[in-house]
């Protein structure tokens, strides 16, 4: 299932990261920053490929490394973007980085959204909070290959207007007219022009048809829980629904033991699972 190379240098020394340099830091919200990094090895940068949904281990030597979704699309060959919410030791060290600082990356890792299998289908993307990171990669990828998909809809929820990430992308998506983009916030203020209401409620108002549709959702666990309920009510079947799992991770390659859900390892078998696949796993969320 996993697409991580098991041959070559990376397979032989899988815990050894590549050196990279920060080329841009974007403050998204009060606790989320996006970092754009470039491998020091130019050849590696040129040959680097991945699929939307794959993750990487971004690290600061001395603080450690952590798992983050790759937030840039595969077509972006200039840099690799991660969006990092500040929560603990490593993420704090990452938040202290400036342009020119040295980081480490092990990527790509894990499986990806099965975008090839979604060709010709409508895709409904539902994101909340930092869960937008892998969805940004996915959505930009689908827009790069716009003709391969049917109707594209993105519902993006945040707590307040200042919690919204990717403002430039949001503006583009709103303006391009080619996709149906809805932002919603939990509590509004006068200046807010988007929708107000929790993501599941907005989803139910929209009532997308499950016909030839794929739904992808990432975000806070409570949001996912209610989004899945709503999707079920609207007639989406489990094999039409995809989400990503999060687990505490260390090695990212199925060896350190901690990220399993029953017999499956989120780091190598995931992080992307269809609801059908999740249903076949023991309930250990």
């Amino acid at each position, binding site marked *: 299932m996993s697409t991580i190379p098991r041959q070559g240098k990376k*397979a*032989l020394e899988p815990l*050894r990261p590549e050196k990279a340099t920060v080329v841009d830091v974007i403050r998204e919200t009060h606790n989320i920053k996006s970092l754009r990094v470039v491998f020091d090895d130019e050849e590696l940068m040129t040959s680097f490929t991945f699929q939307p949904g794959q993750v990487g281990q971004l690290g600061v030597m001395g603080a450690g490394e952590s798992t983050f979704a790759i937030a840039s699309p595969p077509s972006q060959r200039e840099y690799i973007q991660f969006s990092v919410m500040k929560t603990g030791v490593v993420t704090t060290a990452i938040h202290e980085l400036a342009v020119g600082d*040295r980081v480490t990356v092990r990527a790509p890792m894990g499986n990806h959204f099965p975008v090839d299998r979604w060709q010709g289908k409508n895709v409904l993307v539902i994101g909340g909070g930092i869960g937008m990171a892998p969805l940004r990669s996915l959505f930009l990828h689908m827009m790069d290959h716009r003709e391969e998909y049917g109707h594209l809809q993105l519902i993006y929820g945040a707590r307040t207007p200042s919690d919204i990430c990717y403002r430039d992308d949001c503006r583009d998506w709103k303006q391009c007219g080619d996709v149906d983009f809805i932002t919603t916030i939990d509590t509004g203020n006068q200046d807010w022009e988007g929708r107000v209401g929790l993501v599941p409620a907005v989803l139910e108002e929209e009532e997308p048809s499950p016909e030839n549709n794929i739904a992808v959702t990432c975000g806070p666990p409570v949001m996912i829980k209610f989004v899945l309920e709503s999707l079920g009510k609207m007639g989406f079947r489990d094999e039409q629904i995809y989400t990503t799992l*999060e*687990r505490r991770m260390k090695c990212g390659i199925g060896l350190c033991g901690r990220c399993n859900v029953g017999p499956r390892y989120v780091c190598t078998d995931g992080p992307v699972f269809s609801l059908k696949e999740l249903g076949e796993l023991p309930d250990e969320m």
Partner: protein
Amino acid sequence: MKFIASDRIDGLLERLGERGPVWAPREPEGAAGTVLFAPWRPGDAVELDRFTTLSAKKLVLPASEKLLSFSYSLTPEGEALDITGADQGRGDTVLFGARVCDARAFTVLDALLALPPGESYQDPGYRSRRRNLLVITLACTAGDAACFCSSWKEGTASTQGSDLMLYPAGEGYLARSVSPRGEELLALDIWEDSDLEPPELAVTDRVPFEALEAKLVGSLFSDLDFWRELTAKCVSCGYCTYTCPTCYCFDMYDEMSSSRDGERCRSWDACMFYLYTLETSGHNPRPTIAHRYRNRIGHKFSYYPANQGPVLCTGCGRCIRGCPVGLDIRDVLRAAGER
């Protein structure tokens, strides 16, 4: 068969020492009563009658290990970062006096950590140590109350993971090579010829676990009360995982030796610890001891066999002998079988 008298074992160990460091069961100084695999030097007494408290896994998976070193420096172009891998080059290490369950544990770990390139990730540290390990195994003519290796098909007769087998006989040991490297050892001029018969090997406790692979991801998984009852006395100390020859989970962390230099290391970790799976949000998918013990048994008797083939246990009994509250994995397996 080849034979060596007990009083010539020291001579054998000295010859083995020519190939590299020798580890043998010993009663280390200051730890009277405890037998451990420890480096052997000429003159050290070897303890071949009692079982070791801890397994020999540290020879392939050290309790702590350096993975990388790194150093930051300032250059005219700005900050530079150097990363160097740990040196994996090393010669042979000899493990003398392993038991069948210890030797077999290596082959169980190989199924995950030393698959050929292309089939899995490589654990370079494990692989090089494993490749260079010579295992001389002492077959058991008696088990103790905690042993249950006879639950596996070959039981005490297994030669998996060994290079040379020793069988107690007369006033010494009969030797049989079970690998090309074992054959090399038999070519040493230290052996005598003998027509002694190999001994009757021990038969230990038998615990049926074949049926558990499916149950542990099915009915038994959802039965959290079952796990609660059985683990009521467990204190989540993690001893069972550290002493186990097949528990391999590890933690990774960085250690600075100055403001610019440091090392990335890994250490044994234990799935019985609350922090092991604690997520940054505060959510923990295995919040109670029952959840964690369920994972420990599930991993050993279902997930690992399903993914890697072998059961992740060799019946060595160490977790039974050492558990501070007397939790016996066999009771759990039997209760699970009956459920």
